């Protein structure tokens, strides 16, 4: 399976490169290093959210509330900034992480303690979180001129030639890679998703592991919430509307099995980048917005077909000769 996953990831790398080559024939400037860096920066929120979503999907759950969580956290950070413009950015960052974690914990508790299907829980909280934004903001926007310069400058600030937003995404990738591959926590996610019945016998609390996955997803959504609002310098009820579907799509394209237990950090990142390249490239190569949606959708379906086929080929080895031939 490892070899298979690696090959799946390398195929995804190949697909992204092929896509870039294709775009380069129409618009050579797209593949200039500076533009690629800009595409990465633009895809950073998607990468951050996809890594949280990956953990949740690995445990056989799904988190549809991530975009609403992002929007609510973003709104709270923005409103706080309006009232206390001198609050240091680090405090706002910590607060964003905490708010996101709390919202994730609410999802997790409902799934763990009340045993409600995750899709139902997060559909519900998705609407609730959006509703809360409306309540606290009375439907009003927080605009750029109301935010403090430090608040909006942080994600754009250049550090060694890249914006902080990109660095944050890279830090999240590294942390998640370590968590998933090198900690007992990461291992428990794979175990729970791979076979929850077996995981129970090995002393893993399945519900608790799922709870933790939701907390991780929520925390990352909270982090992305501040970065999003600060970067676009605006907060309102509908920011990142429908973004949760992009996040799930990135995971699916990246080979995270919806059935749970299979998937890697590399896959999720590549899945997000693939979507990011498509979304950024289609406008510049002059494809109408109507086609853009259709093409993004087609890419998702092709990825799912591909994943399903890859899963099917791993049949059982019954023949002795085949076993030795491996």
């Amino acid at each position, binding site marked *: *399976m*490892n070899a298979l996953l690696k090959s799946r990831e390398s195929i995804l790398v190949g697909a992204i490169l092929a896509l870039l080559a294709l775009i380069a024939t129409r618009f050579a400037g797209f593949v200039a290093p500076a533009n690629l860096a800009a595409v990465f920066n633009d895809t950073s929120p998607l990468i951050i959210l996809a890594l949280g979503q990956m953990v949740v999907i690995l445990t056989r759950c799904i988190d549809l509330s991530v975009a609403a969580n992002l929007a609510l956290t973003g709104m709270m950070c923005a409103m706080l900034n309006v009232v206390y413009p001198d609050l240091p950015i680090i405090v706002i960052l910590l607060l964003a992480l905490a708010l996101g974690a709390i919202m994730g914990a609410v999802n997790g508790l409902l799934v763990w303690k009340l045993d409600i299907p995750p899709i139902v829980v997060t559909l519900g909280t998705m609407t609730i979180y959006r509703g809360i934004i409306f309540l606290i903001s009375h439907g009003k926007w927080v605009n750029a001129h109301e935010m403090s310069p430090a608040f909006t400058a942080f994600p754009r600030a250049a550090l060694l030639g890249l914006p902080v937003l990109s660095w944050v995404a890279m830090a999240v990738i590294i942390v998640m890679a370590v968590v998933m*591959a*090198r*900690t*007992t*926590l990461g*291992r428990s996610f*794979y*175990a729970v998703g*791979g*076979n929850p*019945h*077996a*995981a*129970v*016998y*090995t*002393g*893993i*609390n399945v519900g608790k592991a799922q709870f933790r996955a939701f907390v991780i997803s929520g925390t990352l959504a909270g982090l992305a919430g501040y970065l999003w609002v600060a970067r676009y310098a605006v907060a309102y009820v509908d920011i990142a509307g429908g973004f949760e579907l992009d996040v799930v799509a990135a995971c699916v394209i990246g080979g995270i099995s919806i059935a749970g*237990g*299979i998937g890697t950090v590399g896959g999720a990142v590549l899945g997000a980048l693939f979507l990011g390249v498509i979304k950024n490239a289609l406008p510049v190569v002059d494809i109408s917005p109507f086609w853009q949606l259709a093409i993004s959708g087609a890419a998702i379906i092709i990825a799912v077909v591909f994943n399903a086929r890859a899963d099917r080929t*791993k049949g*059982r*080895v*019954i023949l002795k000769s085949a*076993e030795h031939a*491996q």
Partner: protein
Amino acid sequence: MARTGLADPSQPVLRLDGIVKQFPGVRALDGVQLALYPGQVTALIGENGAGKSTIVKTLTGIYQPDEGDILLDGQPVRFPTAQAAGDAGITAIHQETVLFDELSVAENIFIGHAPRTRFGLIDKAEMRRRASEILTSIGAKIDPDVRLRDLGIASKHLVAISRALSIDARVVIMDEPTAALSHKEIEELYELVDTLKAQGKAILFISHKFDEIFRIADRYTVFRDGQFVGDGLMAEVTEGELVQMMVGRSVDQIFPKRRAVLGNPVLQVVGYSHPTEFDGIGFTLRRGEILGFYGLVGAGRSEFMQSLIGITRPSKGVCKMGDDIKIIRSPAEAIEAGIVYVPEDRGKQGAITAMPIFQNVTLPSLGKTSNNGFLQMAEEFKLAREYTQRLDLRAASLDVPVGSLSGGNQQKVVIAKWLATQPKVIILDEPTKGIDIGSKAAVHDFMSELAAQGLSVIMVSSEIPEILGMSDRVIVMREGRVVAELEGDDLSPETLVRHAAGITSEAAA
């Protein structure tokens, strides 16, 4: 339904002759014969692995026999699909009925062949009328409009039987239909069987319980290890003779059991009870002992074991290890206390097939192979290598997913996983079920070695040779209770079957 009434009771409706079914590495059916007569109940008797379910699957079109004939009214037929068997009037009622919980009783009875109106829509009124007609004919007081999920298991059986009648079934196969029923419900089922007999149906009744076989069967057929042993009329056979036919095998398997020197008590269980699953289970397990748990499927053995390791909670009872009373509330606490459970269902409860071998092995031991939550990969590989080698696991690398291994090797991974926790007591639930003979021998050998090294083993098994060959002592469970504790000269196939099946008469011995 008219045609069945005219059938000649001396001629079999359905006859199987010389049926062979071969699976990779095992001959599940080896030239068996079976005849079913109209208006009569034929009991199919045999131990686990005798080939009873294989013959049911052959009869219902799920398996195709490799050799042999199926004769329906004397004409050779083939059932390439389950549909074809159904069309020929053969229907099976399983232990867990295969029906649709969310549909009404009438819809369940007529699904697939519902009466239609002129416009091709389902004629609900007609369907309801015919459903209640059939239900009444078998004496079932069930409202055809009620949703199936609101019925008990016994009523679901009645619906399944009604469904069989609605498609004009001539042969009804009942595969351990009473396993999940209460006493009262069983009586009702017997009455139903009598009704079906009166309607001229040929009934194949599969059961382990001798009292019910003698209560309702007219004929018997005995299989053993995929072979036909004998058949005849129930009136001309005794319990003892049937038991003899079932178990009277030549001992062709050699068990590597070494007589271990038993040490001090390691685990003492007193009065373990559960509201619905088992009652008053008690025993003492000594160091180096292999304690066998024998019983029929559904006797409550696995349920008790799951409670012992904290998956479920007992309502009463004490578990002592050494001099300490242990309260085990979760599998993690059981592992800590040194009790591990290797579940029966490898696929569902054992291995995580998408995970590499080494990760499977270290999963319950991550406390030992990690440091403040960070995994020590080198330690993991070391532990996995040590225990997979001890079990003689053959794999290209410890990095390959468990799903790519053969069944026997998967079982070894699961056992290695539990041994790596260095337990004091290991519970093996049907440790060799569904694995090939070579791997079986390796598992048995290893079990013996473990006991010799001072580990205490509880082995839950439904295979008599395995129980007899491996155990120092055997506890027999029936209907959630311990009915016998046997050792030494008391241990024989006949005594095991008698206690497990609840045969009380001494004449049976």
